[in-house]
């Protein structure tokens, strides 16, 4: 972009550095201080891993993590399976195709509205809040990601492949399982990771739909934040950050490697 004036470029670079610093310095700092040997925010006292030890010995955190994993996994499976079959159905043509746009709405409505709606529905029907209520909510969230992503990819697929398969005598179902699905698999996989992360981090749906007994990790973090500032949360944050980064690396590498067409 040599047509830019040098001044504009330099100014821009400074701006970017500042913005990125703003975005990352807090994270770096509180990860660093997870090793600080002080029970409250203070100056650097000394190096220690005791917060990590306390973190890993806390049963409540493991319980909350277990709950989060279950809810997110089930939600991912449900939304991926339902989503991919729905896109397949929609691509057969007809009126169903117009229904695809419905799923874009899940990301347009404020989460709090959807959560309140689900809460009202569950209370009125006497469905107890808890694990399944949350799974339902997260599946709704997941469909809102899976359907648009898979649909986008589906449209990009070379239709000649499916036509060739049909010409060779395969039934539509066989075409789907042997040709389309393998081609969709990378997108489906990356969409699943995305849904998993969104569901794992979500706390608005959990806040309304999980009831008072079922606790997921974000809810646990929220209760810890409300009680005060403790380095155990620093340790937990660092662990989660590393975990998310690994997932991101996996996701990015998938995206670049498997794009065939």
């Amino acid at each position, binding site marked *: 972009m040599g047509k830019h004036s040098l001044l504009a470029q330099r100014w821009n670079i400074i701006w970017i550095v500042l913005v990125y610093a703003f975005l990352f310095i807090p994270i770096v700092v509180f990860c660093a201080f997870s090793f600080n040997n002080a029970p*409250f*925010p203070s100056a650097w006292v000394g190096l220690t891993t005791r917060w990590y030890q306390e973190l890993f010995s806390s*049963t409540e955190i493991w319980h909350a993590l277990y709950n989060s994993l279950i809810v997110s996994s089930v939600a991912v499976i449900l939304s991926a399976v339902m989503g991919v079959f729905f896109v397949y159905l929609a691509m057969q043509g007809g009126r169903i195709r117009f229904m695809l746009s419905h799923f874009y709405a899940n990301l347009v409505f404020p989460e709090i509205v959807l959560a309140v709606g689900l809460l009202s529905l569950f209370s009125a029907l*006497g*469905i*107890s809040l*808890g*694990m*399944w*209520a949350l799974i*339902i909510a997260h599946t709704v969230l997941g469909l809102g990601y899976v359907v648009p992503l898979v649909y986008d990819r589906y449209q990009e697929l070379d239709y000649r492949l499916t036509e060739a398969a049909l010409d060779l005598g395969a039934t539509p179902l066989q075409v789907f399982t042997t040709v389309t699905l393998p081609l969709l698999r990378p997108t489906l996989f990356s969409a699943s990771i995305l849904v998993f992360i969104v569901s794992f981090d979500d706390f608005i749906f959990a806040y309304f739909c999980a009831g*008072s*007994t079922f606790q997921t990790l974000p809810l646990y973090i929220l209760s810890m934040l*409300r*009680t*005060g*500032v403790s380095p155990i949360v620093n340790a937990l944050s660092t662990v989660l950050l590393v975990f998310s980064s690994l997932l991101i690396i996996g996701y990015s590498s998938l995206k670049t490697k498997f794009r065939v067409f």
Partner: protein
Amino acid sequence: MMKFMKKKVGIVRSVMILIWVVIVTLIVFASRLQFFKPERSITVLAWSAAFDRAYVKKFEKETGIRVYLSTYSTNEELLVKLQSSKEKGYDLIVPSDYVIARLKNEGLLKKLDKNKLLFLDQLNPLLMGFPFDPKNEYTIPFVWDVFCIGYDTRKIEPSLIMSPWDLVFKRFNHHAGYRIVMTNDPLEAISFATQYLFGPVSSLSSEQIQEVTLLLKNQKAWVENYTNLRGDYLLGSGAVDAAIMQSAEIWRALAAFKHLDFVIPQDALISIEHCAIPVGSEKESLVYEFLNFFYTKDAFINNYREAFNFPARMDVIDALPVTDRQKAVMRSSPEEFKRYSFIRDLLPERKRFDLWVAVKS
């Protein structure tokens, strides 16, 4: 022929949709199923810090009785859960004083068999015999709290405190940088303000409501944070000069920070948590075992260590790691008790919240 086929296709598709709706509904309602609970088990409904989980596990190990702990965050939630016919199967509940009258009047509580409870003699008599359950036939006190005001001795000279309520509702010494922690529960806030302005009244006229609103609104200028849980940390780290909180939180702060102290207004507000058995329970014998276990001296000492609640048992107090002054508060003389008041339900929920929104505008 085509039309007939189309119609048939339509019917088939509708049936398919119906099948899925039924499947989904079944999945959803399956969560309502009470999973088979073994005979030797009880379901307890209490607030989350009432029974220490590790100690509950100890109970399960020693007696073989499985305990299912369900939680509520407000007493209204407790009421709703008990009143709704959809939620059954609670064997033990832990309500606060001000809902007991309603529970009793609606016939939701079972009479206790006092012979089965081995600890009644050790309970603090001052915590019993209140109007909502004069002979304690339905409820027994478990733990209790006084709402006291903790303050930072480095910033506030104890001898300068004229009236404890002034620490909350006035800028102490007119100091511009004065900051406090105030409760985030509108029920408590309105009770405090009413007690300060009018004393122990049982209802509020609309002028009185205006006064309460004005007082709380003015107070906002020196409130650093509205919270029920972070007060001890904010007080200890020096972010605030004073905090009005439940004694459990203040006692926790006193144990962690040496530069803090507390005062209690003469007409302080208290809250006594009771144990009671819902009328639908069929496992009373197991509940009595539970109660006998959790009312032992060791159990209360453990409870204090975890939650800093004031115990209902008198003989525990001396064994606790607190100052004599704190012990005196935990025992409290009859005269002091006469002046204490309960938190009261002065306004219906909606009006309560309207007031709170007005305060926080």
